[in-house]
Protein backbone atom coordinates (compact mmCIF):
# COMPACT_ATOMS: atom_id res chain seq x y z
CA UNK A 1 0.00 0.00 0.00
CA UNK A 2 1.51 3.29 -1.06
CA UNK A 3 2.02 6.00 1.45
CA UNK A 4 -0.90 8.38 1.60
CA UNK A 5 -0.61 11.55 -0.46
CA UNK A 6 1.92 9.78 -2.61
CA UNK A 7 1.52 12.13 -5.51
CA UNK A 8 1.90 15.14 -3.23
CA UNK A 9 5.19 13.81 -1.82
CA UNK A 10 6.43 13.14 -5.33
CA UNK A 11 5.57 16.64 -6.43
CA UNK A 12 7.22 18.16 -3.39
CA UNK A 13 10.37 16.12 -3.95
CA UNK A 14 10.43 17.19 -7.57
CA UNK A 15 10.18 20.85 -6.59
CA UNK A 16 13.11 20.40 -4.26
CA UNK A 17 15.12 18.71 -7.01
CA UNK A 18 14.45 21.64 -9.27
CA UNK A 19 15.65 24.08 -6.64
CA UNK A 20 18.81 22.11 -5.97
CA UNK A 21 19.34 21.95 -9.70
CA UNK A 22 19.05 25.71 -9.76
CA UNK A 23 21.96 25.88 -7.38
CA UNK A 24 23.95 23.77 -9.82
CA UNK A 25 23.12 26.27 -12.54
CA UNK A 26 24.39 29.07 -10.32
CA UNK A 27 27.66 27.23 -9.78
CA UNK A 28 28.21 26.77 -13.47
CA UNK A 29 27.42 30.42 -14.15
CA UNK A 30 29.78 31.48 -11.42
CA UNK A 31 32.59 29.37 -12.77
CA UNK A 32 32.25 30.84 -16.20
CA UNK A 33 31.95 34.39 -14.91
CA UNK A 34 35.14 33.92 -12.90
CA UNK A 35 36.94 32.57 -15.93
CA UNK A 36 35.80 35.41 -18.10
CA UNK A 37 37.14 37.90 -15.59
CA UNK A 38 40.47 36.12 -15.27
CA UNK A 39 41.05 35.88 -19.01
CA UNK A 40 39.13 38.95 -20.14
CA UNK A 41 37.01 36.60 -22.27
CA UNK A 42 34.22 38.76 -23.68
CA UNK A 43 32.59 35.91 -25.56
CA UNK A 44 32.38 33.75 -22.49
CA UNK A 45 30.97 36.71 -20.61
CA UNK A 46 28.21 37.19 -23.15
CA UNK A 47 27.32 33.50 -22.86
CA UNK A 48 26.93 33.94 -19.14
CA UNK A 49 24.57 36.84 -19.74
CA UNK A 50 22.52 34.85 -22.23
CA UNK A 51 22.32 31.75 -20.07
CA UNK A 52 20.76 33.66 -17.20
CA UNK A 53 17.53 32.92 -19.00
CA UNK A 54 17.82 29.36 -17.79
CA UNK A 55 17.92 30.47 -14.20
CA UNK A 56 15.02 32.85 -14.72
CA UNK A 57 13.09 30.02 -16.32
CA UNK A 58 13.84 27.76 -13.40
CA UNK A 59 12.59 30.44 -11.06
CA UNK A 60 9.29 30.71 -12.91
CA UNK A 61 8.84 26.94 -12.94
CA UNK A 62 9.44 26.57 -9.24
CA UNK A 63 7.32 29.59 -8.41
CA UNK A 64 4.41 28.20 -10.40
CA UNK A 65 4.87 24.79 -8.87
CA UNK A 66 4.73 26.23 -5.38
CA UNK A 67 1.63 28.27 -6.10
CA UNK A 68 -0.06 25.20 -7.49
CA UNK A 69 0.94 23.16 -4.46
CA UNK A 70 -0.34 25.77 -2.02
CA UNK A 71 -3.62 26.05 -3.84
CA UNK A 72 -4.31 22.38 -4.27
CA UNK A 73 -2.60 20.57 -1.45
CA UNK A 74 -2.72 22.96 1.52
CA UNK A 75 0.57 21.79 2.97
CA UNK A 76 1.03 22.12 6.70
CA UNK A 77 3.73 21.64 9.34
CA UNK A 78 7.05 20.46 7.92
CA UNK A 79 5.63 20.36 4.39
CA UNK A 80 4.63 23.99 4.74
CA UNK A 81 8.06 24.97 5.99
CA UNK A 82 9.86 23.32 3.12
CA UNK A 83 7.53 24.92 0.58
CA UNK A 84 8.05 28.36 2.11
CA UNK A 85 11.80 27.73 2.20
CA UNK A 86 11.91 26.64 -1.42
CA UNK A 87 10.16 29.82 -2.45
CA UNK A 88 12.74 31.83 -0.59
CA UNK A 89 15.67 29.83 -1.90
CA UNK A 90 14.65 30.04 -5.54
CA UNK A 91 14.59 33.79 -5.15
CA UNK A 92 18.09 33.67 -3.74
CA UNK A 93 19.09 31.56 -6.73
CA UNK A 94 17.65 34.10 -9.11
CA UNK A 95 19.55 36.87 -7.42
CA UNK A 96 22.77 34.92 -7.44
CA UNK A 97 22.26 34.39 -11.15
CA UNK A 98 21.82 38.13 -11.56
CA UNK A 99 25.04 38.75 -9.70
CA UNK A 100 26.87 36.41 -12.07
CA UNK A 101 25.45 38.40 -14.95
CA UNK A 102 26.62 41.62 -13.33
CA UNK A 103 30.10 40.20 -13.06
CA UNK A 104 30.04 39.11 -16.68
CA UNK A 105 28.87 42.52 -17.81
CA UNK A 106 31.89 44.10 -16.19
CA UNK A 107 34.31 42.15 -18.41
CA UNK A 108 34.11 44.19 -21.63
CA UNK A 109 33.92 47.39 -19.61
CA UNK A 110 37.17 46.74 -17.84
CA UNK A 111 39.00 46.87 -21.14
CA UNK A 112 41.09 44.35 -23.10
CA UNK A 113 44.57 45.53 -22.47
CA UNK A 114 44.13 47.21 -19.15
CA UNK A 115 46.86 46.97 -16.61
CA UNK A 116 46.10 44.44 -13.93
CA UNK A 117 47.13 44.13 -10.37
CA UNK A 118 48.16 40.65 -9.40
CA UNK A 119 47.13 40.94 -5.77
CA UNK A 120 43.69 42.01 -6.67
CA UNK A 121 43.33 39.30 -9.27
CA UNK A 122 44.43 36.69 -6.77
CA UNK A 123 41.98 37.97 -4.23
CA UNK A 124 39.17 37.92 -6.78
CA UNK A 125 40.04 34.37 -7.69
CA UNK A 126 40.00 33.34 -4.04
CA UNK A 127 36.68 35.06 -3.52
CA UNK A 128 35.27 33.25 -6.50
CA UNK A 129 36.39 29.88 -5.22
CA UNK A 130 35.07 30.70 -1.79
CA UNK A 131 31.71 31.74 -3.21
CA UNK A 132 31.56 28.59 -5.24
CA UNK A 133 32.28 26.44 -2.23
CA UNK A 134 29.60 28.25 -0.24
CA UNK A 135 26.97 27.69 -2.90
CA UNK A 136 27.87 24.03 -3.01
CA UNK A 137 27.70 23.75 0.74
CA UNK A 138 24.34 25.50 0.77
CA UNK A 139 23.07 22.98 -1.73
CA UNK A 140 24.30 20.08 0.36
CA UNK A 141 22.95 21.55 3.58
CA UNK A 142 19.52 22.00 2.04
CA UNK A 143 19.45 18.64 0.38
CA UNK A 144 20.48 16.77 3.51
CA UNK A 145 18.74 19.11 5.99
CA UNK A 146 22.03 19.53 7.80
CA UNK A 147 21.87 22.33 10.39
CA UNK A 148 25.57 22.14 11.27
CA UNK A 149 26.59 22.59 7.69
CA UNK A 150 24.19 25.51 7.38
CA UNK A 151 25.52 27.26 10.43
CA UNK A 152 29.05 26.76 9.18
CA UNK A 153 28.23 28.91 6.18
CA UNK A 154 28.15 31.97 8.39
CA UNK A 155 31.69 31.34 9.43
CA UNK A 156 32.76 30.84 5.86
CA UNK A 157 31.02 33.98 4.73
CA UNK A 158 33.20 35.97 7.08
CA UNK A 159 36.07 34.98 4.85
CA UNK A 160 34.45 36.43 1.76
CA UNK A 161 33.70 39.64 3.58
CA UNK A 162 37.32 39.95 4.60
CA UNK A 163 38.54 39.45 1.05
CA UNK A 164 36.06 42.07 -0.09
CA UNK A 165 37.51 44.64 2.30
CA UNK A 166 41.04 43.74 1.29
CA UNK A 167 40.27 44.26 -2.37
CA UNK A 168 38.76 47.61 -1.58
CA UNK A 169 41.81 48.70 0.35
CA UNK A 170 44.17 47.48 -2.36
CA UNK A 171 42.16 49.17 -5.09
CA UNK A 172 42.41 52.48 -3.27
CA UNK A 173 46.19 52.23 -3.16
CA UNK A 174 46.55 50.91 -6.63
CA UNK A 175 48.33 53.84 -8.22
CA UNK A 176 47.75 57.07 -10.04
CA UNK A 177 47.21 55.94 -13.57
CA UNK A 178 43.70 56.50 -14.70
CA UNK A 179 43.48 53.18 -16.50
CA UNK A 180 44.67 51.41 -13.44
CA UNK A 181 42.28 53.18 -11.16
CA UNK A 182 39.40 52.52 -13.51
CA UNK A 183 40.25 48.85 -13.60
CA UNK A 184 40.50 48.87 -9.83
CA UNK A 185 36.98 50.34 -9.61
CA UNK A 186 35.62 47.61 -11.79
CA UNK A 187 37.28 44.99 -9.63
CA UNK A 188 35.64 46.51 -6.57
CA UNK A 189 32.31 46.05 -8.26
CA UNK A 190 33.14 42.42 -9.11
CA UNK A 191 34.11 41.81 -5.52
CA UNK A 192 30.86 43.27 -4.36
CA UNK A 193 28.89 40.94 -6.61
CA UNK A 194 30.77 37.98 -5.21
CA UNK A 195 30.14 39.16 -1.70
CA UNK A 196 26.43 39.37 -2.40
CA UNK A 197 26.48 35.80 -3.66
CA UNK A 198 27.94 34.90 -0.31
CA UNK A 199 25.15 36.73 1.49
CA UNK A 200 22.60 34.75 -0.45
CA UNK A 201 24.13 31.48 0.66
CA UNK A 202 23.73 32.62 4.24
CA UNK A 203 20.06 33.32 3.50
CA UNK A 204 19.74 29.79 2.23
CA UNK A 205 21.42 28.55 5.39
CA UNK A 206 18.83 30.41 7.48
CA UNK A 207 16.10 28.67 5.54
CA UNK A 208 17.68 25.27 6.16
CA UNK A 209 17.63 25.91 9.89
CA UNK A 210 14.03 27.06 9.65
CA UNK A 211 12.93 23.95 7.82
CA UNK A 212 14.54 21.67 10.37
CA UNK A 213 13.76 23.49 13.61
CA UNK A 214 10.75 25.61 12.73
CA UNK A 215 12.59 28.61 14.11
CA UNK A 216 13.71 31.50 12.04
CA UNK A 217 16.82 33.26 13.29
CA UNK A 218 18.87 35.75 11.43
CA UNK A 219 22.46 34.68 11.27
CA UNK A 220 24.65 37.71 11.74
CA UNK A 221 28.06 37.42 10.24
CA UNK A 222 30.92 37.55 12.69
CA UNK A 223 32.89 40.35 11.04
CA UNK A 224 33.14 43.34 13.38
CA UNK A 225 33.29 46.21 10.95
CA UNK A 226 30.99 44.80 8.40
CA UNK A 227 28.58 47.19 6.82
CA UNK A 228 26.55 44.28 5.72
CA UNK A 229 23.62 43.02 7.76
CA UNK A 230 22.15 39.71 6.76
CA UNK A 231 18.54 40.51 6.36
CA UNK A 232 15.86 38.07 5.29
CA UNK A 233 15.48 40.05 2.13
CA UNK A 234 19.14 39.53 1.33
CA UNK A 235 19.73 43.13 0.47
CA UNK A 236 22.37 45.44 1.73
Amino acid at each position, binding site marked *: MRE*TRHQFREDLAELERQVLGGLDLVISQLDRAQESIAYQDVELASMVVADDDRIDGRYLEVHQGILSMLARQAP*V*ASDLRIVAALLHVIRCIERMGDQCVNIAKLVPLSGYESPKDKDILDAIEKMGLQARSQVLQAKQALGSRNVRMAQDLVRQDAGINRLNRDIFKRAVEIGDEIDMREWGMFMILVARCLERIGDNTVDIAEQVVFVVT*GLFREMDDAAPHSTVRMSPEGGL
Partner: protein
Amino acid sequence: MEQDVDLPKTEQVPDVSTTPGSPPEPETMERERLEPAQGHSVTVKDLNAYYGEHHAIKGVSIAFPPNQVTALIGPSGCGKSTLVRCINRMHEEIPKARAEGTVLLDDEDIYGSGVDVTAVRRQIGMVFQKANPFPTMSIFDNVASGLKLSGIRGAAMRERANHSLRAVGLWNEVSERLNRPGVGLSGGQQQRLCIARTIAVEPEVILMDEPCSALDPIATLKVEELIDELKSRYTIVIVTHNLQQAARVADSVVFMLDGEVVEHAPTNDIFSNPTDERTERYVTGKFG
Protein backbone atom coordinates in the same frame (compact mmCIF):
# COMPACT_ATOMS: atom_id res chain seq x y z
CA MET B 1 -2.56 35.22 19.68
CA GLU B 2 -4.63 37.12 22.29
CA GLN B 3 -7.38 39.08 20.69
CA ASP B 4 -8.30 42.50 21.83
CA VAL B 5 -11.88 42.00 22.96
CA ASP B 6 -13.06 45.45 22.20
CA LEU B 7 -16.07 44.87 20.05
CA PRO B 8 -18.27 47.70 18.82
CA LYS B 9 -21.76 48.01 20.17
CA THR B 10 -24.73 46.53 18.39
CA GLU B 11 -24.35 47.33 14.73
CA GLN B 12 -27.47 47.87 12.77
CA VAL B 13 -26.68 46.74 9.28
CA PRO B 14 -29.04 48.22 6.66
CA ASP B 15 -31.92 45.90 6.00
CA VAL B 16 -31.45 44.94 2.39
CA SER B 17 -34.73 43.09 2.20
CA THR B 18 -36.77 46.29 2.28
CA THR B 19 -35.15 47.86 -0.77
CA PRO B 20 -37.33 46.87 -3.67
CA GLY B 21 -35.64 45.40 -6.66
CA SER B 22 -32.31 44.77 -5.02
CA PRO B 23 -31.65 41.10 -4.45
CA PRO B 24 -30.25 40.19 -1.05
CA GLU B 25 -26.50 39.76 -1.00
CA PRO B 26 -25.98 36.03 -0.75
CA GLU B 27 -22.50 36.17 0.71
CA THR B 28 -22.84 38.56 3.62
CA MET B 29 -24.88 37.80 6.68
CA GLU B 30 -26.66 40.65 8.27
CA ARG B 31 -26.05 39.85 11.86
CA GLU B 32 -26.59 41.58 15.11
CA ARG B 33 -23.38 41.76 17.06
CA LEU B 34 -23.37 39.74 20.24
CA GLU B 35 -22.71 41.45 23.49
CA PRO B 36 -19.36 40.09 24.59
CA ALA B 37 -19.46 38.27 27.89
CA GLN B 38 -16.88 36.75 30.15
CA GLY B 39 -16.65 33.14 29.12
CA HIS B 40 -16.42 30.12 31.32
CA SER B 41 -13.65 27.61 31.34
CA VAL B 42 -14.02 23.88 31.12
CA THR B 43 -11.36 21.71 32.68
CA VAL B 44 -11.28 17.98 32.12
CA LYS B 45 -9.26 16.09 34.71
CA ASP B 46 -8.32 12.48 34.45
CA LEU B 47 -11.41 11.48 32.53
CA ASN B 48 -12.06 7.87 31.68
CA ALA B 49 -15.00 6.79 29.55
CA TYR B 50 -16.24 3.33 28.66
CA TYR B 51 -18.65 1.70 26.28
CA GLY B 52 -19.33 -1.45 28.25
CA GLU B 53 -15.89 -3.00 28.48
CA HIS B 54 -14.31 -0.87 25.80
CA HIS B 55 -12.07 1.82 27.28
CA ALA B 56 -12.64 4.73 24.98
CA ILE B 57 -11.12 7.68 26.86
CA LYS B 58 -7.99 6.95 28.84
CA GLY B 59 -7.16 9.37 31.60
CA VAL B 60 -7.57 12.54 29.56
CA SER B 61 -6.89 15.98 31.02
CA ILE B 62 -7.50 19.13 29.02
CA ALA B 63 -8.09 22.76 29.91
CA PHE B 64 -10.42 24.63 27.56
CA PRO B 65 -9.80 28.37 27.94
CA PRO B 66 -12.77 30.73 28.17
CA ASN B 67 -13.91 32.74 25.15
CA GLN B 68 -11.81 30.63 22.84
CA VAL B 69 -12.44 28.01 20.22
CA THR B 70 -10.65 24.74 20.85
CA ALA B 71 -10.70 22.12 18.13
CA LEU B 72 -10.43 18.38 18.72
CA ILE B 73 -8.86 16.53 15.83
CA GLY B 74 -7.79 12.97 15.32
CA PRO B 75 -8.52 9.88 13.22
CA SER B 76 -11.85 8.06 13.42
CA GLY B 77 -12.27 6.26 16.69
CA CYS B 78 -9.77 8.34 18.60
CA GLY B 79 -12.41 9.40 21.10
CA LYS B 80 -12.99 13.03 20.27
CA SER B 81 -16.77 12.70 19.92
CA THR B 82 -16.91 10.61 23.07
CA LEU B 83 -14.97 13.28 24.89
CA VAL B 84 -17.32 16.11 24.03
CA ARG B 85 -20.28 13.97 24.95
CA CYS B 86 -18.73 13.46 28.36
CA ILE B 87 -18.53 17.20 28.77
CA ASN B 88 -22.28 17.65 28.60
CA ARG B 89 -22.98 14.26 30.15
CA MET B 90 -24.68 12.88 27.07
CA HIS B 91 -22.30 9.95 27.01
CA GLU B 92 -24.09 8.25 29.87
CA GLU B 93 -27.38 8.26 27.96
CA ILE B 94 -26.00 5.47 25.80
CA PRO B 95 -26.84 2.06 27.29
CA LYS B 96 -23.89 0.50 29.12
CA ALA B 97 -21.78 3.63 28.72
CA ARG B 98 -20.20 5.35 31.70
CA ALA B 99 -17.71 8.07 32.47
CA GLU B 100 -15.47 8.55 35.48
CA GLY B 101 -13.40 11.54 36.40
CA THR B 102 -13.79 15.23 36.83
CA VAL B 103 -15.08 17.87 34.49
CA LEU B 104 -15.03 21.33 35.95
CA LEU B 105 -17.23 24.09 34.64
CA ASP B 106 -15.29 27.01 36.08
CA ASP B 107 -14.79 25.39 39.47
CA GLU B 108 -17.80 23.14 39.77
CA ASP B 109 -17.52 19.46 38.98
CA ILE B 110 -20.39 18.46 36.71
CA TYR B 111 -19.89 14.86 37.78
CA GLY B 112 -20.23 15.79 41.41
CA SER B 113 -22.85 14.15 43.56
CA GLY B 114 -26.15 15.98 43.70
CA VAL B 115 -25.61 17.58 40.30
CA ASP B 116 -28.72 17.80 38.13
CA VAL B 117 -27.86 16.48 34.70
CA THR B 118 -30.43 18.60 32.88
CA ALA B 119 -29.05 21.72 34.54
CA VAL B 120 -25.59 20.78 33.28
CA ARG B 121 -26.94 20.50 29.77
CA ARG B 122 -28.60 23.89 30.00
CA GLN B 123 -25.21 25.39 30.76
CA ILE B 124 -23.32 23.31 28.21
CA GLY B 125 -25.13 23.25 24.89
CA MET B 126 -24.49 21.03 21.92
CA VAL B 127 -24.80 21.30 18.16
CA PHE B 128 -24.83 18.04 16.24
CA GLN B 129 -23.42 16.84 12.96
CA LYS B 130 -26.77 16.50 11.26
CA ALA B 131 -29.05 19.45 11.92
CA ASN B 132 -31.98 18.18 13.97
CA PRO B 133 -34.73 20.78 14.20
CA PHE B 134 -37.95 19.44 15.67
CA PRO B 135 -40.09 18.53 12.68
CA THR B 136 -43.44 19.27 14.24
CA MET B 137 -42.45 22.77 15.30
CA SER B 138 -42.30 26.01 13.39
CA ILE B 139 -39.06 27.96 13.02
CA PHE B 140 -39.95 30.19 15.94
CA ASP B 141 -41.07 27.31 18.11
CA ASN B 142 -37.85 25.50 17.39
CA VAL B 143 -35.73 28.38 18.57
CA ALA B 144 -37.95 28.88 21.59
CA SER B 145 -38.21 25.17 22.42
CA GLY B 146 -35.45 25.25 24.98
CA LEU B 147 -36.99 28.29 26.60
CA LYS B 148 -40.63 27.31 26.67
CA LEU B 149 -40.01 23.92 28.07
CA SER B 150 -37.77 25.35 30.79
CA GLY B 151 -40.35 27.78 32.01
CA ILE B 152 -39.44 31.00 30.25
CA ARG B 153 -42.47 32.31 28.45
CA GLY B 154 -44.21 35.30 26.99
CA ALA B 155 -42.47 38.46 25.96
CA ALA B 156 -39.13 37.47 27.46
CA MET B 157 -39.16 34.27 25.49
CA ARG B 158 -39.99 36.05 22.23
CA GLU B 159 -37.27 38.56 22.86
CA ARG B 160 -34.63 35.91 23.43
CA ALA B 161 -35.76 33.84 20.46
CA ASN B 162 -35.67 36.79 18.08
CA HIS B 163 -32.30 37.85 19.40
CA SER B 164 -30.94 34.38 18.80
CA LEU B 165 -32.23 34.36 15.24
CA ARG B 166 -30.54 37.69 14.64
CA ALA B 167 -27.33 36.54 16.21
CA VAL B 168 -27.02 33.59 13.82
CA GLY B 169 -27.87 35.72 10.83
CA LEU B 170 -31.15 33.96 10.09
CA TRP B 171 -33.48 36.79 10.95
CA ASN B 172 -33.57 38.43 7.56
CA GLU B 173 -33.98 35.10 5.87
CA VAL B 174 -36.88 33.82 7.96
CA SER B 175 -38.57 36.75 9.65
CA GLU B 176 -41.38 36.53 7.14
CA ARG B 177 -42.11 32.91 7.86
CA LEU B 178 -41.44 32.28 11.49
CA ASN B 179 -44.38 29.95 11.79
CA ARG B 180 -43.43 27.76 8.87
CA PRO B 181 -42.02 24.34 9.67
CA GLY B 182 -38.43 24.33 10.78
CA VAL B 183 -37.61 21.48 8.45
CA GLY B 184 -38.44 23.54 5.38
CA LEU B 185 -35.11 25.37 5.45
CA SER B 186 -31.95 24.48 3.59
CA GLY B 187 -29.29 22.38 5.31
CA GLY B 188 -27.14 25.35 6.23
CA GLN B 189 -30.12 27.30 7.50
CA GLN B 190 -31.30 24.34 9.54
CA GLN B 191 -27.93 24.07 11.19
CA ARG B 192 -27.94 27.76 12.02
CA LEU B 193 -31.45 27.29 13.36
CA CYS B 194 -30.13 24.60 15.67
CA ILE B 195 -27.36 26.93 16.77
CA ALA B 196 -29.96 29.62 17.47
CA ARG B 197 -31.95 27.11 19.47
CA THR B 198 -28.84 26.26 21.47
CA ILE B 199 -27.85 29.83 22.27
CA ALA B 200 -31.40 30.89 23.09
CA VAL B 201 -31.06 29.19 26.45
CA GLU B 202 -27.89 31.18 27.10
CA PRO B 203 -25.47 28.38 27.84
CA GLU B 204 -21.94 29.06 29.04
CA VAL B 205 -20.24 26.61 26.75
CA ILE B 206 -21.15 25.40 23.28
CA LEU B 207 -20.00 21.99 22.09
CA MET B 208 -20.04 21.26 18.38
CA ASP B 209 -19.71 17.77 16.98
CA GLU B 210 -18.67 18.16 13.33
CA PRO B 211 -21.28 20.85 12.74
CA CYS B 212 -20.39 21.47 9.10
CA SER B 213 -19.71 18.02 7.75
CA ALA B 214 -23.15 17.79 6.15
CA LEU B 215 -23.08 21.32 4.70
CA ASP B 216 -21.98 22.75 1.38
CA PRO B 217 -18.88 25.00 1.33
CA ILE B 218 -20.72 28.30 1.50
CA ALA B 219 -22.97 27.22 4.35
CA THR B 220 -19.84 25.90 6.07
CA LEU B 221 -18.14 29.25 5.83
CA LYS B 222 -21.19 31.01 7.19
CA VAL B 223 -21.25 28.73 10.19
CA GLU B 224 -17.52 29.25 10.71
CA GLU B 225 -17.99 33.01 10.65
CA LEU B 226 -20.73 32.56 13.19
CA ILE B 227 -18.44 30.52 15.42
CA ASP B 228 -15.92 33.33 15.30
CA GLU B 229 -18.62 35.72 16.47
CA LEU B 230 -19.92 33.40 19.15
CA LYS B 231 -16.63 33.06 20.95
CA SER B 232 -16.86 36.60 22.20
CA ARG B 233 -19.65 35.37 24.41
CA TYR B 234 -19.19 31.63 24.81
CA THR B 235 -16.48 29.07 25.15
CA ILE B 236 -16.53 26.73 22.18
CA VAL B 237 -15.25 23.22 21.68
CA ILE B 238 -15.50 21.89 18.15
CA VAL B 239 -14.84 18.37 16.93
CA THR B 240 -13.85 18.28 13.30
CA HIS B 241 -12.50 15.91 10.69
CA ASN B 242 -11.61 18.80 8.47
CA LEU B 243 -8.09 19.97 9.27
CA GLN B 244 -8.51 23.08 7.20
CA GLN B 245 -11.54 23.99 9.23
CA ALA B 246 -9.65 23.50 12.47
CA ALA B 247 -6.92 25.70 11.06
CA ARG B 248 -9.38 28.43 10.12
CA VAL B 249 -11.57 28.43 13.14
CA ALA B 250 -9.68 27.32 16.23
CA ASP B 251 -7.49 29.23 18.62
CA SER B 252 -5.94 26.04 19.88
CA VAL B 253 -6.03 22.44 18.79
CA VAL B 254 -6.04 19.15 20.66
CA PHE B 255 -4.83 16.10 18.75
CA MET B 256 -6.13 12.79 20.05
CA LEU B 257 -5.16 9.26 19.27
CA ASP B 258 -6.62 6.05 20.71
CA GLY B 259 -8.40 7.80 23.54
CA GLU B 260 -5.42 9.87 24.65
CA VAL B 261 -4.27 13.41 24.13
CA VAL B 262 -1.11 13.53 22.06
CA GLU B 263 -0.65 17.27 21.74
CA HIS B 264 -2.48 20.42 22.76
CA ALA B 265 -1.10 23.63 21.32
CA PRO B 266 -2.03 26.91 19.65
CA THR B 267 -3.31 26.41 16.11
CA ASN B 268 -0.33 28.10 14.50
CA ASP B 269 2.07 25.77 16.21
CA ILE B 270 0.16 22.61 15.40
CA PHE B 271 0.01 23.47 11.73
CA SER B 272 3.46 24.96 11.20
CA ASN B 273 5.66 23.22 13.74
CA PRO B 274 4.05 20.46 15.80
CA THR B 275 6.07 19.02 18.62
CA ASP B 276 5.01 15.41 18.47
CA GLU B 277 5.97 13.19 15.57
CA ARG B 278 2.49 11.63 15.52
CA THR B 279 0.83 15.03 15.20
CA GLU B 280 3.17 15.85 12.33
CA ARG B 281 2.27 12.63 10.58
CA TYR B 282 -1.45 13.17 11.04
CA VAL B 283 -1.68 16.77 9.86
CA THR B 284 0.56 16.20 6.86
CA GLY B 285 -1.44 13.17 5.88
CA LYS B 286 1.32 10.67 6.31
CA PHE B 287 -1.08 8.49 8.27
CA GLY B 288 -1.33 5.65 5.85
